[in-house]
């Protein structure tokens, strides 16, 4: 393990020496810092300079504060990171105050995405907390001239059983010599608690904020209220790519209580109420002249457009064997093209922010986005101030699903607040969120495969156009493959979505595997197992098939009742899904009746939290599988509302049977994404089993049209 004096893995900092913000919020005491040098030594990506990944602060009054750059948006990192700190400090979870995503206090952890919190942030949080515990032990041993191995830490109190002496973290924090004694001298190999000894981790600990959530006390970003605050509205272009040529602002400027801001193409209105701001916007919006940039692409001709605009200049095909030879030697080949619509994340809380400039020229922005430091950079750049004069705080926010990497509302609020000289609140309308938040990429996925005479796959050619390379590899054993992700020209703004392109890639791969199973005349489960070596994936697939009763139910398929399965691996976790669908042939409707899913992501840190995430993925996956599609024309979103854009509701909930496998001999992986990937292909495969119709477009529909609610 790399360790040199100038870049210690652990540091104790006397927080009176730290920035004012630290002192104000944390008080005096000891600050313990972990850098990613440790993380990189454990196989995680490190950077050239050691980057702080976790902080734990012990206050003289006994308060224990853990600090994390991650964002809570419903997926549960607040609970999980609090559990990690509590476990290693040997205290109950209510002793931990966790500060998240405040750029003045927390380490820069980039964005909260990619199921990274569990594998990349829980381990250093445990290390930081274990270090604090170790410090206490060593300090006490030194004070008492005792053997540190004979001391016990329990409930935050260290005890010398033989003498009855007691000491707490507060005593440690009060000690003036401790910082000097231990600075830069902490062992990097502090032992974290073995899984078999866990008391807080591994438990179904409730959300620390649950009480505030059920009583309405929790303040989401859109709930932040500041004295003297104004409510903001922003002028939006009529279509993508349109630029503002001119606007007559006089009608709004004549409204005495309204502040009008124009900076280039940005036009904002701040008023004492959101209604008043909307009136100001409405008063001038019709005077705006726009230069539009129309493109002759709609959601109806989208997939042909994406194929015509393929850009493979940056493509890096992944190949094994020779795809040409493999296909040439095959006794049977099959081609198919799968497609995916654009969809929106539609988190319940749209983008929101409040910005307040202080007399010192520093701006504080409370924002609903998942990259606090990116938001800080964006605000600094837009307002022409150094990043140090921007503080971004992300209150636990109302959903994201990969859709809130960008910080538009933060920038808008900061601009208007600067001009108004008063705090300004911005919250996008649902229509703004549908229109101006980026979409999950649409895709065309071209598949070609070959079978030999023994029903074995000998060639696998798989190309994703536009959506990306996440989950594009096949877990099945095939000697000749060519797998590639290529770009295209997206006609609507697109970006991340829960599990990225793995949803589309798994949809195409798992449906196409079914096509190959059908071509070989084999049962889809048998065909998959014949090609599958990954023991974790085999285990979940076999478990799901058994729990669902696959072998018996597959024989009972009728034209009105189908069963299907799918499996996949992503983000170092594995999932298998079995579904039963009912087909209403007259109405052309697919009704998902039952979903049985088995998921495994290593040791489970919080079973109840993980169950929520898996159930959530299942229901969200159902939306993309069956209904969700952004419709657009002339650069305008046509269905930007919850009336026109159908999301899963209570009436769509099938019988759901989730089984979580707790695999304890590997590190924990995140669980908030991968459980979505099997839903659409399992449904598509079940529809095929019942009807003989292979649906190759998400959302899956037996008839055209009709996504409204």
């Amino acid at each position, binding site marked *: 393990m790399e360790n040199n004096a100038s870049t210690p893995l652990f540091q104790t900092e006397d927080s009176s020496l730290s920035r004012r913000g630290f002192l104000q919020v944390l008080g005096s005491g000891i600050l313990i810092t972990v850098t990613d040098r440790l993380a990189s030594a454990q196989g995680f990506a490190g950077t050239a300079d050691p980057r702080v990944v976790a902080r734990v602060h012990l206050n003289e009054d006994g308060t224990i504060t853990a600090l994390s750059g991650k964002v809570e948006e419903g997926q549960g990192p607040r609970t999980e990171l609090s559990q990690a700190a509590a476990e290693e400090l040997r205290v109950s979870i209510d002793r931990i105050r966790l500060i998240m995503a405040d750029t003045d206090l927390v380490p820069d952890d980039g964005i909260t995405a990619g199921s990274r919190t569990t594998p990349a942030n829980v381990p250093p949080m445990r290390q930081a907390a274990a270090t604090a515990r170790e410090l206490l032990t060593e300090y006490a041993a030194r004070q008492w001239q005792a053997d540190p191995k004979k001391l016990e830490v329990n409930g935050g109190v260290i005890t010398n059983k033989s003498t009855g002496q007691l000491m707490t973290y507060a005593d440690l924090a009060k000690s003036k010599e401790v910082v000097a004694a231990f600075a830069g001298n902490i062992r990097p190999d502090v032992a974290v608690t073995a899984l078999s000894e866990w008391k807080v981790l591994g438990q179904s600990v409730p959300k620390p904020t649950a009480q505030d959530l059920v009583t*309405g006390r929790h303040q989401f970003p859109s709930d932040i209220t500041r004295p003297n605050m104004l409510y903001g509205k922003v002028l939006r272009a009529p279509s993508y790519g349109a630029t503002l040529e001119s606007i007559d602002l006089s009608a709004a400027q004549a409204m005495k209580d309204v502040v009008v801001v124009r900076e280039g193409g940005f036009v904002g209105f701040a008023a004492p109420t959101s209604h008043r701001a909307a009136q100001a916007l409405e008063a001038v919006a019709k005077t705006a002249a726009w230069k539009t940039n129309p493109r002759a692409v709609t959601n109806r001709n989208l997939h042909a457009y994406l194929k015509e605009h393929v850009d493979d200049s940056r493509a890096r095909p992944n190949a094994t064997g020779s795809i040409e030879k493999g296909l040439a030697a095959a006794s049977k080949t099959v081609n198919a093209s799968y497609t995916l619509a654009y969809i929106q994340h539609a988190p*319940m809380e749209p983008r929101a922010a409040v910005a307040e400039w202080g007399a010192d020229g520093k701006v504080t922005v409370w924002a609903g986005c998942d990259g606090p430091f990116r938001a800080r950079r964006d605000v600094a750049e837009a307002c022409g101030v150094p990043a140090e004069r921007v503080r971004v705080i992300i209150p636990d926010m109302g959903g994201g699903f990969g859709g809130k990497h960008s910080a538009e509302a933060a920038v808008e609020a900061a601009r208007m607040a600067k001009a108004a000289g008063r705090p300004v609140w911005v919250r996008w309308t649902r229509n703004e969120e549908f229109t101006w938040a980026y979409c999950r990429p649409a895709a065309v996925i071209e598949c070609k495969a070959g079978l030999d005479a023994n029903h074995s796959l000998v060639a696998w050619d798989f190309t994703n156009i536009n959506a990306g390379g996440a989950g594009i590899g096949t877990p099945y054993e095939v000697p000749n493959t060519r797998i590639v992700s290529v770009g295209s020209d997206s006609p609507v703004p697109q970006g991340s979505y829960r599990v990225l392109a793995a949803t589309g890639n798994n949809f195409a791969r798992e449906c196409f595997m079914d096509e190959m199973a059908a071509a070989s005349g084999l049962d889809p489960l048998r065909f998959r197992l014949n090609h599958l070596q990954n023991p974790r994936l085999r285990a979940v697939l076999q478990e799901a098939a058994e729990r669902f009763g696959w072998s018996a139910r597959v024989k009972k398929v009728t034209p009105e009742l189908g069963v299907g399965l799918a499996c996949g691996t992503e983000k170092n976790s594995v999932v298998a899904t079995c579904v039963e669908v009912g087909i209403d042939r007259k109405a052309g409707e697919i009704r998902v009746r039952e979903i049985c899913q088995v998921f495994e992501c290593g040791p489970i840190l919080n079973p109840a939290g993980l169950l929520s995430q898996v159930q959530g993925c299942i229901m969200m996956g159902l939306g993309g599988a069956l209904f969700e599609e952004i419709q657009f024309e002339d650069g305008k979103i046509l269905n930007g509302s919850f009336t026109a854009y159908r999301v899963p509701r209570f009436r769509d909930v099938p019988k759901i049977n989730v089984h979580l496998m707790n695999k304890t001999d590997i590190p924990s992986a995140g669980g908030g994404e991968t459980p979505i990937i099997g839903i659409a292909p399992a449904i598509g495969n079940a529809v095929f089993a019942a009807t003989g119709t292979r649906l190759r477009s998400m959302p899956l529909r037996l008839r055209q049209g009709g996504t409204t609610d």
Partner: protein
Amino acid sequence: MDVTLTFKVNGVERTVTTDPERKLLDVLREDLHLTGTKYGCGEGRCGACVVLIDGRRAFSCRVPVSAAAKRSITTIEGLARNGVLHPVQQAFLEEGAMQCGYCTPGMVLSAVALLREKPNPTDEEIVAGMNGNVCRCNGYVKITNAVRRAAKAGR
């Protein structure tokens, strides 16, 4: 033209002077600083804004504040009594029926309204009563369990 309106919010008489066309949701949040009631869609299709008006469910994002005059409004802030949670709130806690929790106030109030009308709802009645509320995280299974639990607790 502003008007002066009086209504009861969580048992307390409140008077506001405002444009009567503003939505009740906005007046609750911006004038009375009761931010527990959420905006989700502005068209009464997601239930984040649900409050009770005279005990019945209402989508406050659709209700002009003038229509609330002289009526009695219950928001999520007014559901617990003397620090004791309403049985529906308690049931949501016990089931862990929230993830981001943004839909939770509306879910809780829709469930309260449902159980007032149907103290022993069937599963079909729970679906029908709650279908106007959207959760995206997506907690329908646990929320349904919470409604069942609250119904059981009320028996």
